[in-house]
């Protein structure tokens, strides 16, 4: 059975890009130890591969200073079979390498304050989207892509513009972004990402049953989702970060030309350079509630 998209293999073949938060500051204080989280993740990746032999899973780690691919099922060896032990072996080795590298880069990068850094989700999302675009453009047939974000650390407001750009580019390529929050705080970024791209946003209560959540909610392919009743978000936090200080604000000034958001009144828009001339400065920068 072929869908309207002739390049698709079938409607139930998926390409899942999993973005994993490896923020050491978060995991050091998390209720669920990283080791347990990792085994849940490996089982989930394996389940996806078992669901369809054409399924394709990529895991991207988002650290404090860098992001990298840590697993790609397409080069999982000649056998191609989903072997839990092999997956674990490969992934854990790569993750270890990544953490070491991230530690080195963080140490060299003095700006990361201890305990208060956010993970580089903007970078990880960009890598994921690039990977999906590469799959789109290579070969004759490709699976249906989606992105799953497993986030624990709080949002980094300084990444607001980059994250929003990734979200809109995902929306344009019709790639849903699913989000599963393993931390304590809701993520406004991921709420908006899932809302805009039509993905599922979830913040599980019972973290020791993470695999159950992942298998029940995020394992189904996009075609099957049409027939399933998946959890719905009750509300979305649409607050934005100001472009000047990267603070999350719910009231601020908006540039009348490029819609950049500022927490204070500026004479000139730092994004597009429009000058708010003295004649009607307040008209141009009317406080606006982000809807």
């Amino acid at each position, binding site marked *: 059975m072929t869908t309207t998209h002739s390049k698709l293999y079938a409607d139930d073949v998926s390409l899942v890009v999993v973005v994993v938060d490896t923020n050491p500051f978060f995991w050091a204080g998390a209720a669920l*130890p990283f080791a347990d989280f990792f085994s849940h993740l490996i089982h989930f990746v394996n389940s996806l591969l078992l669901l369809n032999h054409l399924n394709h899973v990529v895991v991207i780690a988002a650290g404090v200073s860098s992001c990298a691919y840590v697993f790609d099922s397409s080069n999982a060896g000649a056998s191609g079979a989903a072997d839990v032990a092999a997956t674990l072996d490969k992934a*854990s080795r790569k993750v270890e390498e990544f953490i070491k590298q991230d530690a080195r880069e963080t140490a060299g990068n003095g700006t990361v304050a*201890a305990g208060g850094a956010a993970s580089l989700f903007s970078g990880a999302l960009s890598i994921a989207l690039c990977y999906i675009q590469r799959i789109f453009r290579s070969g004759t047939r490709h699976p249906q892509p989606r992105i799953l974000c497993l986030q624990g650390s709080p949002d980094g407001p300084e990444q607001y513009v980059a994250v929003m750009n990734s979200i809109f580019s995902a929306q344009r390529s019709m790639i849903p972004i699913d989000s599963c929050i393993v931390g304590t705080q809701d993520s406004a970024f991921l709420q908006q990402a899932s809302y805009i791209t039509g993905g599922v946003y979830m913040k599980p209560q019972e973290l020791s049953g993470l*695999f159950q959540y992942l298998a029940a909610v995020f394992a189904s392919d996009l075609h099957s989702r049409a027939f399933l009743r998946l959890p719905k978000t009750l509300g979305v936090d649409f607050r934005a970060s100001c472009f000047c200080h990267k603070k999350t604000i719910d009231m601020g000034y908006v540039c009348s030309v490029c819609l950049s958001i500022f927490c204070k009144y500026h004479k000139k828009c730092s994004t597009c350079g429009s000058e708010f001339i003295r004649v*009607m400065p*307040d008209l141009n920068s*009317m406080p606006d509630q982000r809807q």
Partner: protein
Amino acid sequence: MGTMTIGAKYKTTVRDPGTIGILRMSEDKLTFTPNDPRSLMKLNVDFRTIKGHKFNKVDGSKPTPPLLNLSKDSDKGGGYMFEFDNVGSRDSCRDFVARVLGKHQGIVPPRPNAPPEKSVASTGPDQLSSAEMERRMKLLREDSELQKLHKKFVLGNILQESEFWATRKNLLDDEASKASKQKPGFKSAMLADVRPSADGQTNKVTFSLTTEIIHQIFAEKPAVHRAFLDYVPKKLSEKDFWTKYCRAEYLLRTKNTLAAKAEAAEDEELAMFLKNDDILAKEAKIKIKRVDPTLDMEADAGDDYIHLADHGILRDGSRETVDADSELARRTLSQDLNRHAAVVLEGRSTDVESTDTKTVAEALARSKKEPPSSSISEDTSHERSLKVARMTEIEDLQAPRSLPYAPLCIKDPREYFDSQQANALRPLGGSNDGRKARNCTLSTDDAFRHLMDQMSLIKDNKLNIPVLQSDVALKVLNELNEGISRSRRLNLKNPQDSLLGHLPHRTRDELMDHWTAIQELLRHFWSSYPITTTVLYNKVQRVKDAMTQIYQKLQDIKESAQPDVRHEISQLVKPMTQALDAAFSHDLEQQQKSSKVGSRPNGF
């Protein structure tokens, strides 16, 4: 501002049948000249003595004539009443009067404290055309939310009508561009259709001329137009003029060249019509200059079979051949056709819809501009192509002239409240199961070391199998089910509102009303800064008062709420009060700033 001349009836009372005449209005006075020179109903009134004007409503239901009443003194009720033939001319007249009065009363310092009149129109610069009024009414009818705001603020004297609409110009413009602006042009039927009708018994031949036809004659035959302006009514009466014209037409038509010559010799005026139109000839000469010089018209003349016997165009059942000798007969059908086509394409530039030929003639004279000086510059052709493009534009096929704009699309404000729900519910139900993050005070190195330890743990332990206990799995499934069925229940009950749905209907509607009201007020508040005029200052004061009232009402709602929904309400009210607070603090800041400068409040 110019002048305005229009045919009207002057009436002393409503019952009075009225005196037919011509109403002329200039910027400072109006005169009325009766058509009957014996009539005593002549008027010459200075506009400064006119204090106001009223007009009656005309709809199809009653056969009332359109009236315009210019009142001398609103207290005493003296004035002048004019009756018009149609609503269009009355309205244009009324608009003119409104403009003149607005100008005068703007200058005259002791503005009479006229009591608010109950008439539909008000004097002053706010004068609106009825079309504008209608558009606004239509918008209000179609949008109940807008209507509510309008009622609250405009009728509540917080905003002025013009202020209210100034922010909604685009709505009005959209509405306006929908309305067709196409004016009726000339008929494409030729004037040849002014057929003489013979009654068959007498030798009389009857031509029937209507204003429409006369207008067209003026447009197509400038010489006749000029003659009319010159001769009527000084030398000839209008009737005589047209009789002569028709006689000339008749002579031309019957090709009775000899008779025509004879008559022309006797009657100077008649000869006028029989001659070739010299204005047209002059125009033709100018036009020929603009013709592509590579075109050799003389060489092509040989192809013109019209000049040969037994050739020509079939017209009125007889072949029209050209008698090359006669000067009169050179007016060929093709010339007429060309002229007619030119006039139709040119279109009707005046809106004057009058039955009075004199008015038509004068209006046409005004609209006709002097032809551009005959000096032919380099870019004539460019000019011409521009002109052609302009003249042949079909307005209702063009995109609206206004600058393209993309309206800022703000979604239904209700969604904003829904989005607040997560925030509202979190402190209530969203327990974190002791997942409070331990305050992480680890250094960067320690944090990474911890993570590495975790990784080595994974390597040592391999995977914990089974990955999760069955009771945990059951718990998760139950939780998911419950959540889904709860959201489903909510959605089934009330698909669009969730947080708002908890509140009693009355409170919810009240809150939504306040929210839209606050948005409208804030828009006006922020757009009046910086305050440069007294008008803006007063506006800000009014808006501020209204905001204070709403603020108070919000507090009341919060306090009077049932305890079980009080939390939700305060969550909802918070953004509203925040927005208001921002406005108030801005106002305070400005006041302090200006008092520091030491000038009068807000620097004027």
